[in-house]
């Protein structure tokens, strides 16, 4: 079955975003902010090279966590363990470079990416295994694994891999071979200064390719079909000879691996080291990204861009305004999720009100 786009699937998220944006603007104006600040924040998240660079830098991990959540949703599983999985992915790169710091880049880069995939994938696989074999609910298991994973990674950052020359809780830098080029390195080749001094890097391209691969996997391969069948109706899938156990493990492993790739953006792309608390909840935002995209891998790209922009715009507003904080992005996110998730109810509510009004 090819995915088709009913009008509602596109209109609904757009309506939700419009409503949320309107509420946000009204909220800010009622708090006494001038609309000029909003306009300025908006232009500097999209319409200059510096702002756009940061927006795309935040978009990159959100594409990956969004795909991670969307993939598991397709198989009827809810992976909220993305946060832990991305921590494990990031630390795996550090571990690899710690033991093999002098690899040349033609080996280091593929191995680093593989390490991130495996770190995240392993953490997802544990949840998949427990779901398949012990029947434990994947939501509770992944919440617990998040904490265990993050605490474990913090331990690794603070003890074995700690950079002892600095006070900050961060690891030693990765070897030179592991670093990925920034997008500004490419624009420089053409004599342009676009994206200069911004952290957006080649991982963005990697994540776009990953999204396309996910799309083909889900909608154009037999395995993808199996996963979606499983998500639609578990019993029917089982009667058709689709193994629940293998697929649960497979899908959570893949989902974890996608989250693990966030580490590539963070460690190999920009910071070149791992800093305690590096993720501003990319994993949880991934849930919102997947919801807005209705779990469509290509839609994830757009909705990740939206949330990347919200994240960057809120930082901008904090910078411009006396009263607002960057948590504005979190509130905006929550509001969009509410509107999207309770849409059937809202539609029913308003159509009822309309009917009564016309009587």
């Amino acid at each position, binding site marked *: 079955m090819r995915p088709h786009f009913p009008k509602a699937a596109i209109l609904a998220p757009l309506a939700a975003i419009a409503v949320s944006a309107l509420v946000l603007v009204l909220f800010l104006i009622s708090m006494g902010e001038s609309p000029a600040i909003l306009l300025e924040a908006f232009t500097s998240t999209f319409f200059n090279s510096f702002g756009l660079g940061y927006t795309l830098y935040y978009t990159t991990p959100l594409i990956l966590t969004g795909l991670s959540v969307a993939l598991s949703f397709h198989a009827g599983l809810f992976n909220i363990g993305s946060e832990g999985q991305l921590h494990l992915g990031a630390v795996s790169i550090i571990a690899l470079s710690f033991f093999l710091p002098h690899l040349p880049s033609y080996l280091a880069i593929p191995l680093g990416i593989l390490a991130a995939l495996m770190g995240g994938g392993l953490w997802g696989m544990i949840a998949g295994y427990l779901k398949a074999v012990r029947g434990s609910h994947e939501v509770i298991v992944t919440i617990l694994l998040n904490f265990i994973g993050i605490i474990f990674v913090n331990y690794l950052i603070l003890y074995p891999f700690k950079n002892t020359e600095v006070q900050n809780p961060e690891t030693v830098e990765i070897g030179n071979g592991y670093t990925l080029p920034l997008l500004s390195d490419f624009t420089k080749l053409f004599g342009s200064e676009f994206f200069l001094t911004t952290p957006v890097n080649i991982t963005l391209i990697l994540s776009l390719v990953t999204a396309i691969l996910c799309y083909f996997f889900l909608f154009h391969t037999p395995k993808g079909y199996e996963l979606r069948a499983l998500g639609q109706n578990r019993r029917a899938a089982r009667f058709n000879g689709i193994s629940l156990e293998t697929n649960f493990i497979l899908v959570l492993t893949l989902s974890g691996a996608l989250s693990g790739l966030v580490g590539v953006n963070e460690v190999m792309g920009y910071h070149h080291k791992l800093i305690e608390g590096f993720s501003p909840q990319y994993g949880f935002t991934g849930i919102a990204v997947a919801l807005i995209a209705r779990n469509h891998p290509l839609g994830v790209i757009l909705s990740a861009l939206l949330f990347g922009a919200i994240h960057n715009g809120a930082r901008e507003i904090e910078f411009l305004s006396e009263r607002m904080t960057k948590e504005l992005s979190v*509130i905006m996110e929550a509001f969009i999720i509410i509107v999207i998730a309770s849409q059937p109810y809202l539609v029913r509510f308003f159509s009822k009100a309309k009917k009564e009004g016309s009587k």
Partner: protein
Amino acid sequence: MMELLLSTLRLSTPLIFAAMGGFLCERSGVATICLEGVLLTSAWAAATVTYFTHNPYLGAMAALIVGGCTMFIHAFLTVKAKTDQIISGVVVNLIAAGMTPLLTKLLFGSPTNTKAIPVYERFNSNALTLFACVLPFILSVLVYRTGLGLRLLAAGDGPEALETSGVSPQKVRLWAMSLAGMIVGLGGVYLSTAHASQFTRDMTAGRGYIALTALIFGKWRPIPAFLSCLFFGLADALQIQLQSNPIFGQTFPVQALQALPYIVTLLVLVGFIGNAKPPLAIGK
């Protein structure tokens, strides 16, 4: 030793309130990963209202109301709007994590903390701790020995049966969750006006999740959940002691103790130690 015991009780108190709120909510059939958010908003309300009114009781009252309302958002979204329970919980946590620093900055000029309240305006922490130790027993009697309590259990384990007997499970859930929000609110009061003297950004630091973990570790029953809270409080107290007193000249990696609650709970959950089954209607 005595010091460790008292420290354990102090650190367990907010966990117990949150876990008991979570108990009511989950047993009525709604997953509550929003305990963290409820704890956060109520802690904020307690500190803010106490600071402005100079009255800890008004602060506590505000925390109960705000806690109840925050949980009511979750109740409304899940019960009335039929939103996915996990997603709704995440939303409530997001709202709490976003609104509290924003409002703190609007009222106090800095997003990181509210202004400190003087010692004599703080809430009596011993009273709260004492109440936290009695509450699980009260709830245990209320839930397992009264008609109202049995309706709560039925809403969680067999909502269809309850419906057939003429009681709306939706109504039971809305009431149970509002009450649950107030109980969690007491944990917020304890955190910001009894244990500390101000609200600081993200001051709950994952306690809501630990409380949820304790509830699961206690297999969704009040007294075992209470004991798990004490156990996790002990782990926390030990961790603080070890941070200041190195053993054998080495600082012990506190992360091992931090991870302990989650690891043992995972082992319980997956059935390596006993067997834990969530209320049947959860997530539906």
